[in-house]
C-alpha cells in the first residue's frame, strides 16, 4: 500500500460512515451461529445427527419388515423416513432455537449484542440462516442415507415427482418457520440456561412418540392421535409421508387422506401464535435482571 500524502484530513466522524446494513449483518450472524452450533457437542449430537442415528438404528433393526395393515403396507424404512425428516425439522428449528436462545439470554450473549449497534433484525436473520442451513443439510443427509443404505425410493423417482417435491417444499418451509418462531417463544420458559435442555427436550420427545414418528401413526390409540393433532409435528410427519409414500398409503392415515389443507392450516396457525407470543415475550435480559 502506498503511503498517501498527508492531506488535511477533515474530521473523520464515525457517524459520517454508514452503519452496516441489517442484511449484511444477518450473513455475519449466520456465519457465527453456524460456527458456534457445529462446535457445540450437544447440539451436533442431539439436534443435528439424532435423526440420522435414529433412522440408522430403526431401519437396521426392522430391516425386511413392513409397516401397515393387512390390506396395505410399505417397507419399514420408507414409512420411518418421513417421520425422521419431520423430527429433524422440529429439532433444528424448535429445539435448537428454544435451547440456544434460553442459554444466550442466561449467559449474557443477548445483553451484550443489545449493547452493540447490531440491529435486532440481524440477530433473527442469523437464527433463520442457522435453522435453514442446518435443516437443509440434515434433510439432505437423511435422504442420502435412506436412498443409498435402505433403498427408500426418492420422490423424484416416483410418479407425480414434481407435485411431490412441491409438497415437500411447502411442508419443509412452513415446518421450519413455525418451529423457529415457536422456539423463540418457548425460549422464555426455561428459568435458566442450565434448565433449558431439561425443559425443552421432554416436550420434543413426547411429541415424537404421539405424532407417528417412532410408532406408526395409524397404530396409536385414537385419543393420542387427537392430542397429537393439536401440535405441528403430527402434521409435518403426515405431510412428509404424502411426499415419500405411494398414493395408496393414504389409506393408512386415520382420515384416509393426506389432508394437505389441514396440514397447512395447523402449521400456519402455530406460525401466527408463535410470532405473536414470541414478539411479546422476547427479552434481551434474564428475568432476574430487572
Amino acid at each position: 500500500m502506498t503511503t498517501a500524502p498527508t492531506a488535511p484530513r477533515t474530521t473523520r466522524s464515525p457517524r459520517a460512515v454508514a452503519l452496516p446494513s441489517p442484511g449484511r449483518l444477518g450473513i455475519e450472524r449466520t456465519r457465527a451461529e453456524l460456527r458456534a452450533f457445529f462446535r457445540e457437542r450437544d447440539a451436533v449430537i442431539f439436534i443435528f445427527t439424532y435423526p440420522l442415528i435414529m433412522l440408522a438404528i430403526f431401519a437396521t433393526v426392522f430391516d425386511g419388515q413392513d409397516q401397515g395393515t393387512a390390506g396395505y403396507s410399505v417397507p419399514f424404512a420408507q414409512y420411518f423416513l418421513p417421520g425422521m425428516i419431520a423430527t429433524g425439522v422440529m429439532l433444528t428449528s424448535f429445539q435448537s432455537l428454544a435451547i440456544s436462545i434460553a442459554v444466550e439470554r442466561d449467559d449474557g450473549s443477548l445483553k451484550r449484542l443489545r449493547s452493540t449497534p447490531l440491529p435486532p433484525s440481524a440477530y433473527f436473520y442469523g437464527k433463520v440462516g442457522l435453522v435453514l442451513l442446518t435443516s437443509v443439510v440434515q434433510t439432505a443427509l437423511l435422504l442420502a442415507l435412506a436412498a443409498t443404505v435402505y433403498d427408500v425410493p426418492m420422490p423424484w423417482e416416483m410418479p407425480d415427482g414434481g407435485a411431490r417435491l412441491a409438497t415437500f417444499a411447502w411442508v419443509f418451509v412452513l415446518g421450519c418457520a413455525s418451529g423457529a418462531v415457536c422456539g423463540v417463544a418457548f425460549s422464555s420458559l426455561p428459568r435458566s440456561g442450565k434448565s433449558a435442555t431439561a425443559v425443552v427436550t421432554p416436550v420434543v420427545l413426547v411429541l415424537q412418540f404421539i405424532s407417528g414418528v417412532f410408532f406408526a401413526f395409524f397404530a396409536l390409540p385414537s385419543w393420542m392421535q387427537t392430542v397429537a393433532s393439536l401440535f405441528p409435528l403430527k402434521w409435518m410427519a403426515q405431510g412428509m409421508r404424502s411426499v415419500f409414500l405411494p398414493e395408496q398409503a393414504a389409506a393408512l392415515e386415520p382420515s384416509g387422506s393426506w389432508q394437505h389443507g389441514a396440514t397447512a392450516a395447523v402449521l400456519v396457525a402455530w406460525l401466527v401464535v408463535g410470532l405473536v407470543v414470541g414478539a411479546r415475550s422476547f427479552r434481551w435480559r434474564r428475568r432476574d435482571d430487572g
Partner: protein
Amino acid sequence: MTTTPPPTGPGAAGRGSTGPAVDVRGLRKSYGAKQAVDGIDLRVERGEIFAVLGPNGAGKTTTVEILEGFRRRDAGEVRVLGEDPQTAGRAWRSRIGVVLQDSRDQAELTVAEIVRHFATFYPAPRDPDEVIDAVGLREKARTRTRQLSGGQRRRLDVALGIVGRPELLFLDEPTTGFDPQARRAFWALVRSLREDGTTILLTTHYLDEAAHLADRAAVVRAGRVVALDAPDRLGGPGARRPEVRWLDDGAWRSERTDSPTAFVASLAARHAGPDGEVPGLAVTRPSLEDVYLELIGELAAAPAAAPSRVAATDSPVPPAEGRTPDGTTAVVPEEARP
C-alpha cells in the same frame, strides 16, 4: 494490508459532538418499593476516567445500565454523548462501548473470531488484530473463549467493548476476581485507552482501583452521590486529618490534629514513660478506605467503639499493622480485625 493506528491524542477526543460525555440530573429509578437510584447528578467530561464507587446495592449498576440504554428511568435528565439513551439508535450505540459485569457468553468461538465478528457491527471499527494485541491476547487469539482464565476473559470483554472505536467506554466492575498482577495489567490497559482519547466511566467497589485510575470519583450510597472529587480529595480536607493514638493508663486515647508532629512532641513531654516512650503511640492518616467507609456510613456504626472496649481489658493487645491501599500504615484495633 493497511494498518489504521488507533486514534491518538486530541483528534480522537474531539470526535463527535462537544459537551460532556455524560450529563445526568436528578436521576431516579425504583424497583417496587426499593428506591435504587434516588436523585443522582453526574457530569463526566470528555477524555477523563470517572469512577463510580459504592458498596453492593448502592445503585451503581442501575445507574450505569440506564446510561447504557438498558433500563428506563423513572425521572431525571440523562444525556450520553448528547443523546437520551432511552431513545438513541444504532448510530449512538456505535459510539459507546459496554463491558458488562458478568460474561460467560460466546463460549465456542475463538478470541480472534469473536473480535472480528463484533468489528463487523460498527461503521468504523478498529483493526481486530490490533485490538487483540492491545489487550494482550495475541497468544490466545486461536483459543476458544471457554478456555480463557478470568482475567483473559475480562480482557476479551474489553476488546469487544473497544473494537468499535467508542468515544465513551463503560466498565462495570471490570477487575472483580482478578489476581493483583492481572489487575495491574488491566489498569495499564485502561490508562492507555484514555490516552487514545476514550472517555471511561468505571464502576468499582475497589478503592485502590479508583485511586489508581480515576481522575474523579463519585461515591454512591443508597442511590445518592455522597461525595464527588478526585480520589485523593474525596471527603474534603477534614476527612484526612491525621489521628494520633496512645495508651493512657491502659485506656486508648486519640486526637485528630492538623499538626501531629507538634502534638506528639507535647505528648512525649507529658506522657512518656521512664524509657522516654509514649505507650502505644501511633500516628495515622486516614486512608482512602477510611474516608470511603466513613462516607458510606460504615465507620459510624461499628469500629468507633473499639478503643474503649480494648481499654476494658487488663493487658491491651498491641495493634496489628496492615497496609492500606494507598500505602500508609494503618493501625487496626483488635476488634476491627477480620
